[in-house]
Structure formats: structure tokens, C-alpha cells
């Protein structure tokens, strides 16, 4: 197997892909959005409970391959308890890493969280997979921006 693949399918991704965390709908979300990648059929729905600027709770349901599900699972763990600004900074830095964009420096208190996303950055050598790895983040962003329930975002 090539090095890139071994990097990509690390235990952490397999673990989150097969046993996703926060995998349920929230009973009373303040925000939600559906993410759909029509190219491969992957779907996630993100549920948010915001208290002002603070992410009190976040969860997801979805189906798809290990990368998209692991990414959603890791995202919910990481952004729970953060502010929207912090979540946005993490998304921007993660997005830059997987798309080969210019590296974005993060405040030191977010570095550990960014580190946890590192295994997913292996998708950058698989352009078809990048959209799947960022699907949950796009849905998260759409939920926040729509300011309501049931927004839909497509990545192709």
C-alpha cells in the first residue's frame, strides 16, 4: 500500500468512521443543515444548539464512506464548547490543508484541535475525496449562516 493511503486510513479515522461520536439528532436544535455530495451520494445532517456565539451542543447523522463520517464525527467532538469564530478558524485552516491552499496560522489554544484533524489531510492526494472530508464542515457553516433549520448545501 502506498504511504498516502496508510496515512489516510489510520486507526483514528477507522475508529471514528465505524463508531462515530455524537451520532444522533438533537431534540431541540437551534440550527441544522443537510450536506450532500451528489458525486458519491454521501450525506450528513448537522444539528447545532447555539447559545449566542457559543456552540453548546453539536451532533450529526449521515451515511457515506469512512472519510466523510469520520470527518463529521471528529468535527463534532472538536467544535463542541467552542465559539463560532474558533470553529470558523479551524475550518479555514483544515480547508487550506486539504485543498493545498496557503497555510493559515491558528491561535495557540486551537493548535491541538487542528492536530487532531491532521489524519484527514491525507485526502489531499485524492481530489475526489476532498469534498467528502469537508462535507460536514460545509454543512456546519450552512447551518450557522442560514440562521435556521433545514438548510441544504451541496458539494461537487
Amino acid at each position, binding site marked *: *500500500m*502506498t504511504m*498516502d*493511503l496508510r496515512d*489516510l*486510513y489510520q486507526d483514528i479515522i*477507522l475508529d471514528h*468512521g*465505524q463508531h462515530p461520536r455524537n451520532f444522533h439528532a438533537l431534540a431541540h436544535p437551534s440550527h441544522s443543515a443537510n450536506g450532500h455530495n451528489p458525486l*458519491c*451520494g*454521501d450525506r450528513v445532517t448537522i444539528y447545532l444548539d447555539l447559545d449566542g456565539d457559543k456552540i453548546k451542543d453539536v451532533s450529526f447523522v449521515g*451515511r*457515506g*464512506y*469512512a*472519510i466523510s463520517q469520520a470527518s463529521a464525527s471528529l468535527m463534532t467532538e472538536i467544535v463542541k464548547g467552542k465559539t463560532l469564530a474558533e470553529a470558523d478558524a479551524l475550518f479555514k485552516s483544515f480547508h487550506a490543508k486539504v485543498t493545498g491552499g496557503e497555510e493559515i496560522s491558528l491561535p495557540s489554544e486551537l493548535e491541538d484541535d487542528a492536530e487532531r484533524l491532521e489524519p484527514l489531510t491525507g485526502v489531499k492526494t*485524492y481530489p475526489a*475525496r476532498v469534498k*467528502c472530508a469537508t462535507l460536514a464542515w460545509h454543512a456546519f457553516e450552512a447551518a450557522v449562516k442560514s440562521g435556521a433549520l433545514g438548510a441544504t448545501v451541496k458539494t461537487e
Partner: protein
Amino acid sequence: MSFDPQALRRDFPIFANNPGLVYLDSAASAQKPAAVIDGVSNFYRTDYANIHRGVYRLSAKSTELYENARERVRKFLNAKHFGEIVFVRGATEGINLVAYSWGGAFLKPGDEVLLTELEHHANIVPWQILRDRIGFKIVAAPIDATGGLDLAKLEALISPRTKLVAVTQLANATGAMVPVETIARLAHAKGAKILVDGCQAAPRLAVDVQALDCDFYVFSGHKIYGPTGIGVLYAKKAILDAMPPFQGGGDMILNVTFEKTEFQEPPVRFEAGTPDISGAIGLAMALDYVDAIGRDAILAHEEALTGYGVDIVSRLPGVRLVGAGQHRLGILSLEVEGIHPHDVATLLDGHKVAVRAGHHCAQPLLDKLGLGATTRASFGVYNDERDIDAFAAAVKAAQRTFKTVTR
């Protein structure tokens, strides 16, 4: 000549340029032999000019090669008349041409077009677009529990309202064979016409449109070792003669004024604009290549590989072959328990095994089978048992990575 995939593989430069490549995606597109690649290149180097109407020698030569390619296709399909062969961009355009031209002229509200659940989107969507314009009904003949077409149910669905039965000869998503000769007889008995999508069948078995007695037959050049961008629509002469043009433009006219245009006879009536000249010539070379190997030999090879593949895959724990009924050819569609097909395909790519994962442009079929996606391996003349062994080994490795099967 004895069939030797290893020797044939040397005809395909892609393998020399990608050492270790295990190419199992010929159902999506076949690789090209040097005869086609060089043939197209040489045509551009030595004989190229636009066809028809050119009075100079080079144009006459180019025209001759293009029309010879049409004759080559006629022979390949055993069509009765040269003029029954229309060059199109691919099977998709061929079906769209039939829908737009024949369907637009002859289908009426209250009519029915009978499809099957095995169809590729290319044999579904053009009919839906036309239905929304005209208001006829689309009916889909179901598959049976094994995944094959339920012929008795199809027969029962052909009624006096049925004007067309449009059916694949070999399902691209699962490899299920369809008895189109029988269906042609059933359709004609009720006064319906039949269109056969031969995309997967034409590269794998001998096709005789007169013996099939089909009214329309379409296939794509790139799936039969030819170039992309070229395909064939065959239609019986009497039907083609009655069909209005598909696209308007140069070459398809006899006389144009601002008041009125007289159209050419088929097939030129349906080939507006400068066609894919080199594509048609390249396709003819691909058909030469296929016939030099021999279509009976290719069929025997595909059957043997399919049998071997079914045997190997059936013995893999945690792997399920997706139904293709009793008769499967050239295509294996499978589910790997606990691993999404996109993960399977990505991991297989790490072993240089190229397969397809997804719905294979046959979403209604996958929905019926209760699946979102499958992993599909498909064969060509250059594949042999070793490719299937490599595929099976890579699937096992994926299972080890995912710890779904530990052996």
C-alpha cells in the same frame, strides 16, 4: 489463434506506461490499442481534411475514409444497408436522437414507453424529458429476486399502448444479460418497436442487428477500444427515412433558403455539422482490432473470466455479489460488508487496482436492490485470472485495514 491476454496487453500502451496497473474498469471505458492511437494520429498526419463537398483530393480521401468507417460499422453489426448507420457522439446521444426525432414525431399522449429496471440513466432520462413534453407514460419492467430481468412480467407489460420497448442488452451496473432477441419478438407481436442499448454487449459478444430484428441499436466507441466522442446509432432504413432531423446545420441539407430547407436523406440528415471524422475512423480501426481477435474468442474469454471471478469472489468472506440473475457477463458488482464502496475503491487504488464505486448511473436499479452504491469490476480483452486474483487480494487487504474480516 489462441487467446492470450498477456500478449494482447502489449497492444495497449497504457500498461507499459503504468506498470502494475490492474485495470478492471472497462465497462466505464476500455483502454485503447496502439493500432487505434497510431491510426488516428496517422490520419491527422497524412490524410486529414474536412469531409464531403471538398473538391480537392485530400478532402475526397478523408471523405472516403469516413464513409469506409460507416461501412465497417455496417459489417460489424451486420446491418442490411450502409445508410442505416448514423455516427453520433456515443450511445447517450444515439438514444437522445431517437427520443427527440422518432419519439417527438410518433409518440402521443396515452402511449407507453417500456423500459426495464436494469437501465442506465442514458436510457431513462431522455424518455422522461420527452414524456414531460408530450405526456406519454413510462413503464419499467421489474427484475426478479435474483436480479435478472423478469421476462414474464415484461411480456405482460407490453400492451397495445406500448409504442417502444427500450432495453439494455447487458446491464452496466450488475452484468445481467437480457434476452433482447426474445424481447424484440414480443414487442413486434404487439406492434411496438424496440431499441437496444448495446454499450456493454457490443464489446463482448457478436451483434447481428438483422438476427436480433431490433429497430434501433446504439453503442459507444470508447467502450469497444475506440476513441471517445464517437458512437453509433443503427436504425432500420424505413424508420430512419420517416424520422425528422435531430439537429440542423451544415451537411444535413439539400437546399437552404430563408423560407425553407430541404433535408438530406439518412444517414447524413442526422449528422449536422462537421462530425467526429477521426473518431469514426478510429472506431473502424477498433472494430478491425476486435474482429482480428475474433468476437467468439472474446465472448469465450469474457465468459471464462466472469466464471472465474464469480468463483473467487463468492469464496471471499464478507463479500456479496450483487444479483445479475442467471446470466452474467464481463461485470461483477459487489458489496463488501462493513466497508463503503468508496473506501473499497480508494483502498484498491493503493494496490493499483482500478475499479468503479458508486451507483454506476443506474440509481433506480441500485434503489431496487436496496443499495446506495456497489464496487464494480469489469473485464476487457487484456484482463486475465491474475487481475482477478490481485483484485481479491486487495479486497482482503481492505478488510484487514477496516478489521471487518481478520483472516
